[in-house]
């Protein structure tokens, strides 16, 4: 790969898989649609041909058993990845994730862990409606024992996937089809320890702190660009790892800017935006805030199918910028 060649997010995930499957014989991938171009975009193209259908297992329509089997294989020492091409369908698998994988280490006195990676893909828009649209990452951040990861860049998509799979703990790795055309010039793979990863400043600024994860982190940088053209300096932070959540970087930033805006692709009530605001505000003197924190989330309704309603349902950078402008002036 020549250094100047840029790689898109989907291809970066595929590179992560190829790296793992090449270097770690205990890695295998299980889930629906893995032999098909329909389900997972370009993120797994031909992995079955390159690494064999024994390790890239396309399955019966059984989210629950496939996830449970991946958890069991992890307990038995493998490093499985179970792929849910749409997060909505993954709800069938909640017992294996929440009751089994998340608690295994604690229940067994730390003598065994379920180092499974659950790859949950957010796939929304395009008039798909209520059950083909959800961003349910917040649910999983409530559970001790789960690590929750949301990459927003191509480099993170590859490297955090690798870190997630190598981690001994169960990881919910959430990627977003709306990010698949984002691209980076990828550096050489350097294995990182997931424990050391956390929120990261993506643009420095002084007047407002914008925080988001996954596609919302991209929205934050889009908003910052719009604000910059208005002469407002925004600092943007990509959360990257939502659980365990390390709010230190965000606290520092808010102490500097005095304003906090959190964009989240889920709903407000008990959602991750609320967690960010609560974690930050309980660590700072309220007097250091110049305005009330703002949550930017979905309206409290299931995703609509009609394009007319989709337009008002999903968050747009211009609207967020306008809201911030109003709060600053």
């Amino acid at each position: 790969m020549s250094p100047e060649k840029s790689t898109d997010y989907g291809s970066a995930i595929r590179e992560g898989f190829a790296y793992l499957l090449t270097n770690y014989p205990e890695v295998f991938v299980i889930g629906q649609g893995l032999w098909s171009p329909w389900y997972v975009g370009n993120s797994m193209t031909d992995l079955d041909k390159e690494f064999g259908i024994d390790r890239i297992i396309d399955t019966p329509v059984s989210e629950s058993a496939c996830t449970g089997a991946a958890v069991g294989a992890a307990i038995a020492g493998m490093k499985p990845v179970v792929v849910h091409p749409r997060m909505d369908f993954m709800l069938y698998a909640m017992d294996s994730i929440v009751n089994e994988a998340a608690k295994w280490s604690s229940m067994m006195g730390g003598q065994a862990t379920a180092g499974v990676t659950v790859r949950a893909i957010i796939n929304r828009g395009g008039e798909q409606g209520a059950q083909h649209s959800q961003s349910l990452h917040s649910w999983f951040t409530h559970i001790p024992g789960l690590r929750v990861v949301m990459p927003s860049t191509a480099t993170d998509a590859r490297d955090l996937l690798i870190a997630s799979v190598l981690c001994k703990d169960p990881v919910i790795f959430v990627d977003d089809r709306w990010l698949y055309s984002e691209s980076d010039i990828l550096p050489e793979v350097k294995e990182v320890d997931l424990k050391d990863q956390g929120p990261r400043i993506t643009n420095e600024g002084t007047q407002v702190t914008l925080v988001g994860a996954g596609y919302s982190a991209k929205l934050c940088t889009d908003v910052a660009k719009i604000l910059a053209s208005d002469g407002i300096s925004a600092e943007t932070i990509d959360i990257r790892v939502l659980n365990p959540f390390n709010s230190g970087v965000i606290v520092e930033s808010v102490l500097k800017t005095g304003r906090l805006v959190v964009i989240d692709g889920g709903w407000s009530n008990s959602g991750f935006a609320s967690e960010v605001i609560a974690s930050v505000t309980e660590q700072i003197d309220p007097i250091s805030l110049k305005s009330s924190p703002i949550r930017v989330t979905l309206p409290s309704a299931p995703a609509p199918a009609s394009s007319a309603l989709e337009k008002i349902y999903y968050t747009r950078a211009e609207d967020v910028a306008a809201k911030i402008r109003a709060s600053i002036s």
Partner: protein
Amino acid sequence: MSIEIDLRSGFISKSKHLDVKLDLQGQLEEDLLEQLKMMQLIRICENKLAEMRKQGKIGGPVHLGAGQEAIAVGISKYLRKSDRIFSAHRSHAHLLALGSDPKALFAEVLGRSTGLTKGMGGSMHLWDQPNGFYGSVPIVAGTVPLAVGAGLAAKLEGTKDIGVAYFGDGAAEEGIVHESLNLASQLKIPVLFVCENNLFSSHMHISQRQPLQSVARFADANGIRNQIVDGNNLLDVQAASEELIDFVRSGEGPAFIEAVTYRQYGHVDWREDIDVGVNRSSEDLAVWKNRDPIRRLSEALIELNPKLESAIANQTNQLRSQIESAWSQAELDPFPSPSSLLGTVYSAVSK
């Protein structure tokens, strides 16, 4: 040799076939005595736990398997330490039959740091991987897909180890079991499904929960080789286990044993649960106690060799004092330190 009975319809609990005398099939007396000893050990442990729970010495619930010992003992005879056994809430027999230390089980039930899961699990969350026991948890059917996955791992690693999923007739009403059966069959995963059909799930008799009373019909539906056995007959369980475990180990796919049995205690703790639900009467309990797997085996052995009567009695007494002493030791063990609460939520090492 399985008893030829049609358990696929009708009230299996009333079947007279389950009253037949044990045919020892010319097996070595020494081996059978060893198996009997393990069944007795399990029974004495379960009775001890019942008594201690009744006295309030145990703080949490215990789900006891007294009456079901022949199943775990018969199956474990053909398992290896490297196999991957998973179980559920009523798991003490499955664990002990693998050679696990009763004292470590007691310490766990008492919430002590020397317990099988270092005091973090109690009776319902047990682990002894060095003996092949990968874990038990009380979400009904929760570990069934895990055993499938552990079998899949063995297949991918190219070992001849197998997964074993112990579950009950109630678990067969959970959707995950059906997905697991289909997946294991389709991918030819080396896993043995063991359904202990003790006719009750909590307070409900199987006739109140399922239109047909054989759980093995679900194995048929998924193209899985299966046998229904008298779970209170060690020899019957052994014969099925030998054949089916050999089949699974050979890599030809999963297999399924339905062992019909009865729990002598109620669903949880020491009570007998007579008429807590419907169809668990004192008459039924008496019938089933008459089919006690331990009594049936010792009677068959003594009939063949009357000299064994005193040997078996001695063995029982020795086991009793051994278990008493294990309990007393466990009671002296320390509780977990406060730091263990947060210490094992995530793994200590990264990869």
